[in-house]
């Protein structure tokens, strides 16, 4: 039987791919959103926002499932009159009135009574109303992947902009889930023939420290290292409040900060098993979200070949390097120090002093770059330079290497 699913917030970060996947499954989709989605077969759209009444026409064609994904972030109302609270309540009542057999609320891992931020409290309050048969709460973890929108965009931008990030609650656990896995999970909840629970957790069962998560983003999306400076919560919040009270051009959202501080983790393994959903592994998935490996290897080739030679490498060497890494190494690009990426000559200061420890580490790749540069080079003096020039070059090399050595001993140490 072809299902008919009504999706709210169908033009948002999660809603848009959710609509596309539902259509791809052959379902009929009704979208309630502020913006009109592109026209597609089996897709209806009604303009709607959380402050508006659900158009009656939406229910005329019987709906099998309501997937309530819409959320309004900004609110000027007091919390008990929050648009999300009232709008969701109205939607639920309308669905019940229309006899919709299933209602799935996209909630959050952070939803709980007394959550530190409003989002968590509001989501918890909406979830509390889901008491009828077929009314289910999906508690979603930290969503990543796909187009740079929403919180994903914020985190990508944050990790792109900074090399060093002061942070409260660096060790707080987050439970990521890839956007595509999330959509699949939500649609599986819609399609379940029998419901054995009222709440499904859609998040990685193993929490990962938020600081580690940001470092992974920096590494795999931007190919750089990120250093996190942990800050104590209370003094940081005090400082934030003082800063926000001052007439400064930038304010820090207390809501977001407290959301992070109040994060909890939930056990999702059983829920995922019930949905027969296997989440993709985080690191390969993040790698796939960043630039292609080839693209990164090319950037690496440029940096390393420039570092072992003295000039910008010609395309033939770049190609040889990328092919060489793909053939003789695992084919993944290294994370190079940002300084060296900007100025490849400085990579010498990061070159480990000892031998290569693992196949494909920086030392091994520098060696490969040196092999390529040597095979393609023109720097051999077959005519002879004379003793004076030779001694001068030896002296120069000795001076440069002696200067570099302390830096290499410190910066070239193996990092975990």
């Amino acid at each position, binding site marked *: 039987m072809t299902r008919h699913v009504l999706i709210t917030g169908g033009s948002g970060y999660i809603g848009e791919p959710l609509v596309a996947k539902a259509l791809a499954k052959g379902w009929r989709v009704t979208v309630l959103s502020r913006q009109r989605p592109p026209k597609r077969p089996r897709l209806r759209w009604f303009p709607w926002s959380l402050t508006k009444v659900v158009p009656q026409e939406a229910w005329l064609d019987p709906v099998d499932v309501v997937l309530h994904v819409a959320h309004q972030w900004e609110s000027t109302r007091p919390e008990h009159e929050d648009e999300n609270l009232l709008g969701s309540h109205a939607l639920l009542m309308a669905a019940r009135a229309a006899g919709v057999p299933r209602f799935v609320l996209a909630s959050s891992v952070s939803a709980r009574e007394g959550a530190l931020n409003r989002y968590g409290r509001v989501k918890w309050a909406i979830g509390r109303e889901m008491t009828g048969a077929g009314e289910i709460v999906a508690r979603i973890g930290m969503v990543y992947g796909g187009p740079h929108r929403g919180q994903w965009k914020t985190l990508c931008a944050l990790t792109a902009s900074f090399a060093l990030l002061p942070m409260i609650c660096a060790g707080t656990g987050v439970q990521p889930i890839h956007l595509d896995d999330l959509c699949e999970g939500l649609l599986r909840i819609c399609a379940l023939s029998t419901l054995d629970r009222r709440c499904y957790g859609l998040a990685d069962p193993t929490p990962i420290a938020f600081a580690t998560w940001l470092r992974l983003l920096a590494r795999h999306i931007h190919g750089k290292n990120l250093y996190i400076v942990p800050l104590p919560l209370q003094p940081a919040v005090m400082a934030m409040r003082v800063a926000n009270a001052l007439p400064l051009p930038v304010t820090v959202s207390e809501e977001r900060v407290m959301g992070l501080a109040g994060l909890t983790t939930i056990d999702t393994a059983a829920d995922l098993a019930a949905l027969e959903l296997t989440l993709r592994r985080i690191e390969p998935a993040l790698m796939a979200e960043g630039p292609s490996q080839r693209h990164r290897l090319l950037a690496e080739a440029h940096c390393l070949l420039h570092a072992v030679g003295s000039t910008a490498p010609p395309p033939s060497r770049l190609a040889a390097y990328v092919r060489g890494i793909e*053939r003789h190494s695992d084919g993944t690009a290294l994370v190079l120090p940002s300084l060296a990426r900007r100025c490849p000559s400085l990579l010498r200061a990061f070159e480990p002093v000892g031998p290569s420890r693992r196949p494909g580490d920086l030392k091994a790749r520098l060696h490969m770059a040196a092999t390529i540069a040597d095979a*393609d080079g*023109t720097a051999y003096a077959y005519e002879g330079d004379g003793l004076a020039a030779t001694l001068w070059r030896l002296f120069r090399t000795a001076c440069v290497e002696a200067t570099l050595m302390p830096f290499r001993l410190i910066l070239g140490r193996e990092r975990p």
Partner: protein
Amino acid sequence: MSHRPIVVVGSGPAGVSAAWPLVRAGLPVVMVDAGRDRFPVPPPERPAFSVLRRGAPGALGHLLGANLDGLRDMRGYSPKLRTSAPPDFINAYAAGNAIRTEGFSLVGTFAAGGLSNLWGAAASLFDRDDLGCGAIGFDELLFSARSVAKRIGLNGVDDDDMAKVHGLGLPLQPPPPLAPGAAALMRAYGSKPASDFILGRARSAVLCVDLGERQGCNCCGGCMWSCPRRSIYNSADELPALSAHSNFTLLAGVTVARVVRSRDGVAVLGHDAEGREIHIEADRVLLAAGAVATTRLALEASGRWNEVVPIRTAPALAFAAIMPRLLGSALPQRSFGLAQLAFRADLGGGSDNYAFGLLYAAESMAAPDLIAHMPLSRRGATDLLRTLLPGLIVGLIYLPGECSASTGRLIRNPDGTSRLEITGGFAESFHPTRRHAITAVAAALRRLGAWLLPGSAKAYTPGAEVHYGGSLPLGQATDTWGELQAVPGLHVVDGALLPRMPAKHHTFTVMALADRIGSHLAEPSGTPFT
């Protein structure tokens, strides 16, 4: 007389040397080899190395290979292995021969011609002390050595101090011209001879004059990247000539899994490249699969399970030395890329206790291999190397096999098949001998105007020097014709047979031993050496 063939396992230098006398005598010979092709021969139009190094078009392809196999991480091995070998040649060999190693770098290849595809072609003959046993007479060996030398072509001289170390009385072609550093050393040596350090020309299985289809060396300097003129001996070059005989059959692409005693002979069991089973009944089987692979086959045929046997190696060290007087001088446009000079340094304690070494002109080697262990940045090390290159000499020192303590043990797998487990190691005497050898060589070179670069002497891990042998010594595990006592008709004819592993390169001696056994088996009436 039976019409069943004599089977030779392996097409490396030993297998081919054993096969020739049998084929010439008209006996039916089947050579079984896991390799189908030899390593690729470089195109004849490859420019001289000095031209490639100055940015000739296509240099990347010529020096790193069309598939960039030259970028393989082969630090710790001879530069020759990096530059000319196809991918996975080491891993495929160990797995295909059911050999597992620990602390031992096994080098081998499933290619027609075996390790002669990438050897350094050093060709010295063991003397009585090197052989270290009375199982065979040196004169018998010399008879076969002459025959092999004539066949493959050796270059060298018969009148310098090293000639008697390499072996006197062999047919020799004139050697290639010396590089400036080697020539300077020889001049200095001529005026300052020493009793405990002998220096002279290297002797190599490289043609300087055309021989058959193979051309003489033109000193293009690219020896490390394989020879386009086939001047460097590769036993695969002899396979067409062998195959021209109607009584010789080459079964290429057949991996031998087991050799077993059958009712009235020996059976060879294996499979071809498509996985079809191969079963050959033979009167005699000659094992020349390479010393380590042969050891597994012979131990299994003899039922010597779980027995620890020695896998002798000649532990090797690499070093670099500098001749200050040559710094800043021009590099030769043409040169010979393999060993220029050889030396013998006495280690005291008997005439069989010496270090043997080879000296190369550094300009004919892949520079990245020379800088691999320098603690400088890659760019600094490259700059340093290029600056020192006109005066740089690279050397290899080999120590007697008594310094090695690697062992092998045949293990039965749960499915009934076998595997050979090799554990690499050095004897207690290794470190003092190594220090003694380095000190002696450094002092001798210093007298001749070359200075050992501090910290440059590095020992290879056991096995990486690719001198294997001594696991089934002639006259002990076998009779004087390499025949295993436990399995009549099964002969060992490769390095496994060596009674000792002296410091000297063993391949040429192994070829002579193989020729000797082949010649004996070719004469139904007995020994041909009369």
